[in-house]
């Protein structure tokens, strides 16, 4: 765990330095990258010298499903519309919790999607695609 935490800290230290590739005019980004790098290195050495408590168990399940749900929404909302993307995101995200009851989730997803549809599309006339493949908008 100590090694894991140190390694992760080291990663964050190196990450911003990696984005140095592309800076354009102005010295601010360059100066900032240097500052980020230096502070990152300081933290990393600190992390390696001291024995940290480790970062604990990372629940992959939550991460995959919650972020996966958001990605699914982003990919599906324009081609398929809110009618599909709404329940989709809720069902995928629901899977993140182990104690989920599926029937509940299904009903809840359908109802809430309808509610959002009414609120955002018709109540506030936001230009969110509803179901382009079915009704054309």
């Amino acid at each position, binding site marked *: 765990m100590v090694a894991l935490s140190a390694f992760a800290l080291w990663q964050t230290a190196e990450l911003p330095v990696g984005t140095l*590739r*592309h800076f354009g005019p102005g010295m601010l980004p360059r100066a*900032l990258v240097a500052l*980020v790098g230096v502070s990152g290195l300081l933290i990393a050495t600190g992390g390696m010298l001291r024995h940290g408590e480790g970062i604990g168990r990372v629940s992959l399940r939550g991460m995959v499903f919650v972020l996966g749900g958001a990605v699914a*929404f*982003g990919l599906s909302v324009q081609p398929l519309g809110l009618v599909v993307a709404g329940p989709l*995101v809720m069902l995928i*995200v629901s899977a993140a919790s182990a104690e989920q009851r599926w029937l509940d989730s299904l009903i809840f997803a359908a109802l809430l999607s309808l509610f959002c549809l009414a609120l955002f599309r018709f109540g*506030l006339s936001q230009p*969110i695609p509803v179901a382009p493949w079915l009704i054309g908008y």
Partner: protein
Amino acid sequence: MGDFIANLGLGFTTALSLSNLALCFTGCLIGTLVGVLPGIGPIATIAMLLPLTFKLDPTGALIMLAGIYYGAQYGGSTTAILANIPGEATSVVTTLDGHQMARNGRAGIALGIAALGSFFAGTVATMVIAALGVPLTQVALLFGPAEYAALMALGLTFSVVLARGSILKSLAMVFVGLLLSTIGADLETGQARLTLGLESLSDGVKFVVLAMGLFGFAEILRNLAQPESRDMINAPIGKLLPSWSELRQSFPAILRGTGLGAALGILPGNGAVLAPFASYALEKKVAADPTRFGKGAIEGVAGPESANNAGAQTAFIPLLTLGIPPNAVMALMVGAMTIHGIIPGPQVMTKRPDLFWGMIASMWIGNLMLLIINLPLIGLWVRLLKVPYRLMFPAIMLFCCIGVYSVNNSPGDVLMTAAFGLFGFGLFKLGFEPAPLVLAFVLGKLLEEKLRQALVLSRGSFTTFVEKPIAAGLLLIALVVLLVAIAPAVRRGREQAFKE
């Protein structure tokens, strides 16, 4: 004085219009709702509801958003007292004595004194804003680019010092935030920087995307990673109104909390978060019998609750007078104002006095509404607290996704938010505080602009920051604050303050 009354008069006529009253009420209600529900903060809510305000007029939109913000401060205390979980970051301290009071069968009184204290603090804070608004705006008009840059540096220093955890880590967060803000087209030449060749990054990272990722998505991940323990009180809530002697006991605490909160809230760099902690420590120090604290002392609820409300409101001062947001919620307010074509800063008061004073008056009205709606509605909030998180978080995710999407109708934004969610969760795991990052991100563009202007005016010489007395003074304060925070004695005290 005459001006003061005339200004407030204008404010109240604006705020008392039927539509603005309705918006204020809606804002307060939504704010209390998110404040009560753990796992969804005011930042995510305001970001989510930002699209809802596109169609409103700017005054109404800001009145509603402000209502959400201080409503959340109110609602957070309900959760803290009844379920022993802070609904908001600022109500952490309330769990200590508030929940103990609830266990002793005095839940109603704890809630009542929290509401009364908050109302009193809100009233005083509103007056402070109204009184300080005009002189501070005049000061702000004297500020040139060098002074602005120095002031922002001071704000960022405060955000580092006031953040929890290691100072070095917070400092690193500020640098990362500033770096993120430089992504996108260069201010003067329009050349793309740090975009990794991605088209969608050419406008820079959008604030809603960053805030929703770091505070919305990451929060959900965090809550899922830590199985929640709700220590719900099943005992009856009991009577709400404190007795005369209880009132007399807590009134000095309310007074001190309000003063502390109002003063800390003005500090750039989110002093409001510190206010309840400071107030609790103070109450413990002045109490005749400090051992009562942690066992249900009424002053331990009254003081911090007043402090957090006062701080939440005076945080508007830097935003409204200087155009500099002191914390992430205020940064979202900047976003909302810009969407409506208003540039925050000293010119708001002269160009849109109705907006400025209307918003201030609406805060007082909102506080009154909160007092009136919250106490009778406590039963409803309690029932809401029983909604299991497994049903809540998919709903929050759906709202977040729609919210992010509809700001720009861009599906790419949703994907980027997910990436920031992952980043935010990583930061949490590694013990980094996201608040300084977000503040640095918000101030970054403005800071770069002012820095460059100042350097152009001084022909590239950094001595301009030392020669101008105001700029030099501000930078000196920033330096002293940072040094003091690093000093070992204060460091120990600071750790202790956060532990309590």
